[in-house]
């Protein structure tokens, strides 16, 4: 038997796939730690601003909220919660109030797991990200949130970290929202009202990827374009696209694309596109 034959007959161990998957998960966790360190100082610098800007009318927001625990904060967007692992999630919907309740180790969680809520326009949407949640019944949550007449769509974004969870809540035009974080028990409450006036739709410009099915390909685009503030939108046909923007003019979007494509590692997979602020990208 030649050396080449012996090489070809090297036995591939059955656990190779599992070990390589574990290595990828470890890399994801490492990347997340680095990212958290990178942004922690920035977050500290802007948190005071968020606390002020985020509370439009606290007294009004709280007047109709039934007591379900101790209020930690009221906000429209931002971050909160405490680091946990393995928190379970359930939802309760009553009229325009959606409560996301967290349980841990069979009992009620004292506080909400670490979360971030982003508010974006075109279309009007909230992006919820929870860390340290492993038993997230997403389907039930989606069903509960979709029951609200002020919600136009709910969909999930895949994250390369099996203890994190992200979903997008698209709100109908003119819908206003308030988020309240409670402790004892750990609850996040989303209250929607139809008080706002729908603004006239306008064309918005984005740098975007091709539409693709929900999955790891999209999650990897998040890692690649993390510093470009990438988000993920459902397309008209139900696929998903990574989008960066939106910009008021095509020129601004093209400038952004030029800046990205000048990078050494750019893979040539983005283009400029536009759609109406109350619409969705085509495929």
């Amino acid at each position, binding site marked *: 038997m030649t*050396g*080449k034959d012996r*090489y070809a007959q090297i*036995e*591939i161990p059955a656990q190779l796939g599992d070990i*390589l998957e574990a*290595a990828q998960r470890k*890399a994801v966790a490492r990347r997340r730690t680095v990212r958290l360190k990178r942004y922690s100082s920035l977050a500290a610098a802007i948190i005071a601003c968020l606390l002020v800007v985020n509370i439009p009318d606290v007294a009004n927001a709280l007047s109709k909220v039934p007591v379900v625990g101790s209020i930690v904060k009221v906000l429209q967007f931002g971050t909160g919660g405490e680091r946990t692992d393995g928190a379970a999630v359930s939802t309760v919907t009553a009229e325009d109030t959606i409560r996301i309740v967290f349980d841990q180790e069979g009992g009620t969680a004292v506080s909400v797991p670490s979360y971030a809520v982003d508010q974006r326009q075109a279309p009007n949407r909230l992006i919820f990200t929870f860390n340290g949640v492993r038993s997230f019944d997403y389907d039930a949550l989606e069903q509960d949130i979709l029951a609200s007449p002020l919600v136009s769509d709910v969909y999930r974004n895949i994250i390369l970290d099996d203890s994190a969870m992200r979903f997008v809540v698209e709100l109908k035009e003119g819908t206003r929202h308030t988020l309240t974080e409670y402790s004892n028990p750990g609850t996040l409450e989303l209250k929607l009202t139809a008080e706002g006036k729908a603004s006239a739709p306008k064309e918005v410009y984005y740098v975007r990827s091709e539409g693709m099915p929900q999955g790891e390909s999209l999650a990897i685009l998040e890692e690649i374009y993390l510093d470009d503030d990438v988000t993920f939108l459902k397309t008209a046909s139900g696929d998903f696209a990574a989008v960066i923007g939106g910009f008021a003019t095509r020129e601004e979007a093209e400038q952004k694309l030029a800046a990205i494509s000048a990078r050494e*590692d750019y893979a040539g997979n983005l283009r400029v596109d536009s759609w109406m602020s109350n619409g969705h990208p085509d495929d």
Partner: protein
Amino acid sequence: MNELKAQSPVPQPFAELLQDCRNNLFRKAYCYVKNEHEALEIVSEATYKGYLAFGRMKTPQYFETWMTRIVINTAIDHLNRNKRVTYMEDHPQSYTGDEHAVPLEEKLDLYQALDRLLPEEKAYIILKFFEDLRFRDMADILELPENTVKTRFYKIIGKLKAHLKDGEVEGI
């Protein structure tokens, strides 16, 4: 390229690309350590490094070439860390010649002969004789000029020859 084929230009996720070449990567790692547990350790570490660097990869169509380089470097680091090497004196002679003029694999059990080589030298035998790569493709993986690869390759053969009994590899 020969076995290390160019991948589709459409961006594919790391896991999907890895799936297609993971067995080849394991075999290369195994040649360095001849031990399943250590080979798994090497491929796992290379996967970890590769995943973190994937976003900065310049030519995604050559994923396997790129991962092979990471596995080779990880294996060399692993061996140097663990000092599991049989060192031998360097052979000062330099060799040149046509790449098809060396029927060494017919004269010598190259799989066993790997154990005689420094960690940095093993890749030349694995890629040339086991993977049947051309010098140009080896140069891509090793990130060296093709002529440098040729010179080092023949130097390594000279080392092996020097360790064999007289007449065993006549005609090299």
